[in-house]
């Protein structure tokens, strides 16, 4: 589009809108999982957010994934609830299909000009019924399915899209030459508007968070491994779609050439990553590919049980929490072989379409044909990176990702502009999520004085008391455009509903969920005096909140609502059996009405929030969280078991990147000690925890003094400790030390160490073994850091690194390469053939002889060296078990604290109000700890910034009279929501509604039906069962 035209439109806009209309607190750029999380946290914390996304929907790359490692959760299922939350949050202004054009201003006062692209569909009118899609004659490759299947020129990006509206692709016939226009004719809502033009919008905000994500590396330009030349070479993202049930073949893995199931598949690692000569590729490690490849192997094996797979790799980097076990799971599958080898692609069999791969084995080079080859492509900077650098005035790093502050990985080079997610480098989903919460904490720090000023709460009229009234049920039957109406007899269902007991009003609607219809339903409820509402339409999982609000708007308790799902569970799945489907729809409505008759009004609890924070653990993680929130006005208690703050960082001196850790830690400690809002308690231990979200009461003992702290939130940041090796002569010979000890000695130029002419570093000491089946994540990079430092101080020193897999993930790979180039020697060892050490004395020289197998030379090596450095594992802090028990939070199998969800709730616990950061969760680097600490602060902020928390009304309660004190309910409730209480009639079970999550397990355990779950009572379920079978 010509600039002149845009300018003209923009001028018109300015006249129409004025300039002050669009004012917010924070603009989040990028609507993937990181941007969504940042927006949700900020809006919950009381800020008005503009969420800008360039594609037609939020969701980002995560929405394209089939499953997520290492839990194999369904990616869309866990992400899409966040879409709806984003959509409904009144403080998020969602702008999809929108680009950022320019940014002016200073922190606290930015003016951002946005370019809203025309989607040719009026968002407010479109109901997402997809009738236009059905009639559209133009087929285009579906970008969501990696162009592996076709979609229409008008379509919804994917079925869970938010906003759930169509957009029109440039291949539309009308847009090309003004022919067609069928969609306009069939749209009952007149939502198609070909007159739409690109529109410029100015928005004023105080801070900006950049979360534009990444691109997968594109192997096409170089035809890496035959991609683009051979049909059966696909990328891992293509394969992700092939695996997915919403993918091109409904979850059938069919290879491109002949749409047949491949039975022999090869995966090639590091495509586009870890390239020594990176012309067209990247030198860094992409950090996620090893694990996602294992996930794909596991899932493919699940789909195709007789599949044979070979995975070609160069180091398996299973450095994350539970990754090692995940790798073992993949490795143990039958006919699955992980092969350490560089590979090249040979040729394509012209008849079968199979592709040959050449790889090395101990017996020489082998060429083997595979039916499908999957390229595990790496992560590359977003296409917008260069443009963003100019538009936002931020610097990029040498790899083209966003440049960040060394001790604050969320801060870009421009004040007031933060970043989260993979814009700062390759990372996994949980890091993108914790970074989002962390960026929220920092934007909030900047804008603390305006918190709550622009944000709004929805206000509803007062609820009327209908408890004395008879049930007056209103039934609204939705046609959902043609989705329901075309299959079942909607008028017939409506007529039938009128005959049901208690029903006083029945109405049909074209789209019950359309904003105007919802309003009309509200009016009808009021006018007809309805006190129960059934909407026969789609699934409550997406639409129940909307209709509950509709009831609230009519002054009726929101729990008097029930949804009869006659779309997903009826018309869409029985579309060929119209008569039977109509009968079934009637049954569903009857069940719903029967249930509605028994529904009871429920109160949601409003619990006050004590705005005090307790942080347990005074290392870098704890101090960072405490300082961030104290700065924002929250009184903070920081409890540390040692006599000084700082934790393990007190023993660190420099980072891999060469930053001075001690200066940073000393400065942070000073800021924390001096902060008037932070009460530091050292030599302290937590001895007891009581209470629940918003209202905890924790007892802390310090130097003989016991005090009880009332607080609303808690952050657990107790860190981890270095394993004390029992292996390799440690403790017996003073030439043997750990990595941390070496760092200390290097920092103070320890004479003995500096005199060492040769050093052996042994990796994986005390982990990746039977006792500790995990990778301690930091030691490979730690070894590089210290090896490089030693080389810097003493270039002539001989350094050997004995390793199993070199796990220098992400940009840390650069330092691995640097060490190799500085002649640090790397020798791989296998766990079955560990290096052997012997302390010897020959010719007056004391040394240690290391015997190790050299796999390249195929013989034993003997190294006589002056120092042995052990990469000792990182292990959980002693006392974690007791602390976990007190806070009612779990520990994982390796003894680290277990977050609520591996991917999407990385700093939360399942128990509300308690958060987690730092190495207490899992070993991690200092920069990662800092990000996570900001993340925990951001999550705690969403709680502490509110005056109250809402707890669902659908919780359990006990009829004391019927309770026989058997304790069955108490023993199944792992939330600890039920306790015995002494009453005049003896001990009775009592539910603490605040802790109850409403699963109702206790109800099915209670022998006397004394405990009940509101909203899912026995009577309600009985009524549904009886109604379902009334006609039998």
């Amino acid at each position, binding site marked *: 589009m010509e600039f002149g035209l845009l300018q003209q439109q923009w001028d018109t806009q300015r006249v129409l809108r004025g300039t002050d209309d669009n004012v917010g607190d924070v603009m989040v750029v990028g609507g993937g999982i990181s941007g969504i999380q940042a927006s949700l946290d900020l809006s919950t914390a009381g800020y008005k957010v503009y969420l800008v996304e360039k594609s037609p929907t939020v969701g980002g790359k995560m929405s394209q994934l089939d*499953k997520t490692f290492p*839990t194999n*959760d*369904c*990616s*869309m*299922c866990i992400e899409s609830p966040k879409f709806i939350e984003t959509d409904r949050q009144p403080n998020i202004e969602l702008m999809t299909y929108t680009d950022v054009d320019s940014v002016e201003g200073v922190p606290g006062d930015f003016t951002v000009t946005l370019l809203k692209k025309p989607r040719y569909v009026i968002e407010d009118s479109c109901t997402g019924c997809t009738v236009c899609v059905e009639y559209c004659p133009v087929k285009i490759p579906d970008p969501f399915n990696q162009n592996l299947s076709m979609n229409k020129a008008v379509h919804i990006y994917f*079925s869970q899209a938010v906003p759930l509206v169509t957009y029109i692709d440039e291949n539309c016939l009308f847009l090309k030459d003004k022919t067609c226009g069928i969609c306009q004719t069939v749209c009952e809502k007149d939502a198609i508007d070909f007159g739409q033009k690109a529109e410029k919008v100015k928005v004023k905000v105080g801070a900006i968070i950049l979360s534009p994500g990444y691109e997968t590396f594109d192997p096409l330009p170089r035809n890496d491994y035959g991609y683009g030349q051979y049909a059966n070479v696909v990328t891992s993202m293509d394969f992700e779609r092939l695996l997915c*049930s*919403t993918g091109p073949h*409904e979850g059938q893995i069919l290879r491109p050439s002949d749409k047949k199931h491949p039975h022999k598949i090869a995966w090639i690692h590091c495509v586009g990553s870890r390239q020594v000569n990176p012309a067209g590729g990247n030198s860094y490690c992409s950090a996620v590919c090893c694990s996602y490849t294992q996930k794909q192997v596991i899932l493919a094996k699940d789909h195709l049980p007789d599949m044979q797979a070979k995975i070609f790799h160069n180091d398996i980097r299973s450095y994350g929490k539970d990754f090692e076990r995940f790798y073992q799971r993949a490795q143990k599958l039958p006919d699955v072989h992980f092969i350490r080898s560089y590979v090249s692609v040979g040729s394509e069999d012209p008849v079968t379409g199979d592709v040959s791969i050449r790889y090395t084995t101990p017996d020489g080079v082998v060429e083997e044909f595979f039916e499908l080859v999957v390229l595990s492509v790496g992560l590359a900077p977003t296409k917008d990176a260069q443009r963003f650098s100019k538009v936002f005035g931020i610097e990029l790093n040498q790899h083209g990702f966003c440049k960040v502050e060394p001790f604050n990985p969320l801060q870009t080079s421009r004040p007031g502009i933060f970043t989260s997610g993979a814009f700062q480098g390759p990372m996994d989903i949980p890091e993108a999520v914790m970074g989002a919460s962390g960026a929220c904490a920092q934007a909030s720090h900047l804008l603390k004085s305006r918190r709550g000023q622009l944000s709004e709460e929805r206000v509803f009229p007062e609820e009327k008391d209908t408890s004395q009234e008879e049930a007056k049920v209103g039934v609204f039957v939705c046609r959902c455009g043609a989705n329901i109406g075309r299959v079942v007899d909607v008028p017939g269902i409506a007529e039938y509903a009128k005959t049901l007991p208690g029903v006083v009003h029945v109405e049909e609607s074209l789209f019950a969920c359309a904003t105007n219809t919802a309003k009309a339903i509200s009016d009808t409820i009021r006018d007809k005096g309805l006190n129960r509402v059934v909407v026969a339409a789609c*699934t409550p*999982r997406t639409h129940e909140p909307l209709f509950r609000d509709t009831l609230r708007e009519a002054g009726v308790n929101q729990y008097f609502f029930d949804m009869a*799902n006659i*779309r*997903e*569970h*009826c018309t*869409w*799945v*029985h*579309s*060929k*059996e119209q008569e*039977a*489907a109509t*009968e*079934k729809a009637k049954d*569903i409505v009857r*069940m719903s009405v029967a249930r509605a008759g028994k529904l009871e009004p429920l109160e949601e609890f409003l619990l006050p929030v004590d705005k005090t924070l307790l942080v347990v653990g005074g290392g870098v993680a704890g101090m960072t969280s405490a300082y961030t929130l104290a700065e924002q006005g929250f009184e903070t208690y920081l409890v540390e078991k040692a006599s000084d703050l700082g934790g393990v960082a007190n023993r660190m001196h420099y980072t891999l990147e060469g930053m001075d850790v001690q200066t940073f830690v000393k400065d942070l400690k000073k800021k924390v000690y001096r902060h008037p809002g932070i009460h530091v308690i050292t030599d302290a231990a937590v001895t007891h925890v009581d209470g629940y979200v918003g209202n905890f009461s924790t007892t802390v003992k310090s130097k003989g003094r016991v005090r009880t702290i009332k607080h609303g939130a808690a952050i657990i940041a107790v860190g981890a400790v270095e394993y004390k090796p029992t292996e390799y002569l440690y403790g017996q010979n003073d030439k043997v030390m750990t990595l941390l000890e070496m760092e200390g000695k290097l920092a103070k130029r320890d004479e003995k160490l500096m005199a060492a002419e040769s050093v052996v570093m042994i990796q994986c000491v005390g982990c990746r073994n039977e006792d500790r089946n995990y990778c301690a994540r930091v030691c490979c990079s730690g070894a590089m850091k210290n090896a490089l430092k030693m080389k810097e101080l003493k270039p002539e020193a001989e350094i050997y690194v004995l390793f199993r897999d070199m796990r220098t993930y992400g940009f840390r790979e650069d330092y691995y390469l640097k060490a190799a180039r500085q002649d640090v020697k790397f020798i791989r060892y296998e766990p079955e053939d560990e290096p052997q050490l012997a302390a010897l004395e020959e010719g007056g020289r004391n040394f240690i002889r290391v015997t190790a197998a050299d796999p390249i030379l195929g013989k034993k090596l003997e190294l006589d060296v002056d120092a042995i450095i052990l990469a000792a594992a990182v292990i959980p802090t002693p006392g974690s078990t007791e602390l976990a028990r007190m806070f009612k939070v779990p520990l994982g199998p390796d003894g680290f604290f277990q977050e609520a969800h591996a991917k999407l709730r990385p700093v939360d616990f*399942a128990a509300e109000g308690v958060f987690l950061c730092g190495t207490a969760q899992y070993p991690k680097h200092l920069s990662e700890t800092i990000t996570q600490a900001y993340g925990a602060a951001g999550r705690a902020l969403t709680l502490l910034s509110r005056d109250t928390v809402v707890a669902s009304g*659908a919780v359990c309660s006990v009829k004391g009279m019927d309770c026989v004190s*058997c304790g*069955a309910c108490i*023993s*199944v*409730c*792992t*939330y600890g929501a039920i306790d015995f209480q002494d009453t005049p009639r003896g001990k009775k079970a009592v539910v603490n509604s605040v802790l109850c*999550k*409403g*699963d*109702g*397990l206790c*109800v*099915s*355990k*209670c*022998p006397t*039906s004394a405990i009940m*779950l509101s909203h*899912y009572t*026995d009577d309600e*379920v*009985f009524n549904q*069962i*009886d109604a*379902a*079978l009334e006609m*039998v």
Partner: protein
Amino acid sequence: MAAPSDFKPIIVGFLCNWCCYGGADLCGVSRFQYPPYLRVIRLMCSGRVDLEFIFRAFAKKSDGVFIGGCHLGDCHYNPEGNYDALGNSMVAKRILENIGVNPDRLRLEWVSAGEGIRFAEIMNEFGAKIKSLGPFGSSEGRDVADLQSGLEAATQLVPYFKLVERERFRVPRRTEAGYEEFFAKPDFEPLFKALIIDKLAMGRIMGELRANGDATAGDIAQKLRLDAGEVARHLHQLSQQGMVKLNGGQAQIAVAA
């Protein structure tokens, strides 16, 4: 017995909100087709499905009952109620079989919210199974009324079962293998018979005597399709408890019972 071709089964389905209901939704979104037999009741967790719900559905002549939860290890809730659903369904199947209801009419499956196709497959398969079994009672070759009185006895047993479950049938390891192992242990069946099945038989005997008056052990055994010796043993025990009086060959309800 072949089912008449116009037989349209009704299957009552208890679906957990977080996984199976989501899977059923996705199945709809993806337009996978399955026969229109299922009537869904949405619960928050499959662990909420009370034994009584299952017996009630069958007592109301449901042709099948379906329970759908999250895959083991994936439960939305901390207490992992799907393991309880697993235990409950194993118990329910044993009780159903004992009172003459074909246990294949009850089916428990794990369906994640991402497994739309799997939901359709299960519905197609289970639908065909129920269709082949015919209406409730037909494959059993039993009077529906007889089955219903058995279900009533089973329902009355539920509170007792819940008490016993906690003491004697608590599965020590909450893994799939742990459950399988527990229910396959050699001492499980005898214990289950002694504690549950015998109690159930006595309940049914009492019900039969109440409904149809005095009867001999042989008559009762025939009616309830129990072993005559077993019935005699139960009658003996019931008489010791003062629940029945044995009058010659006839058993009769004790006045107080």
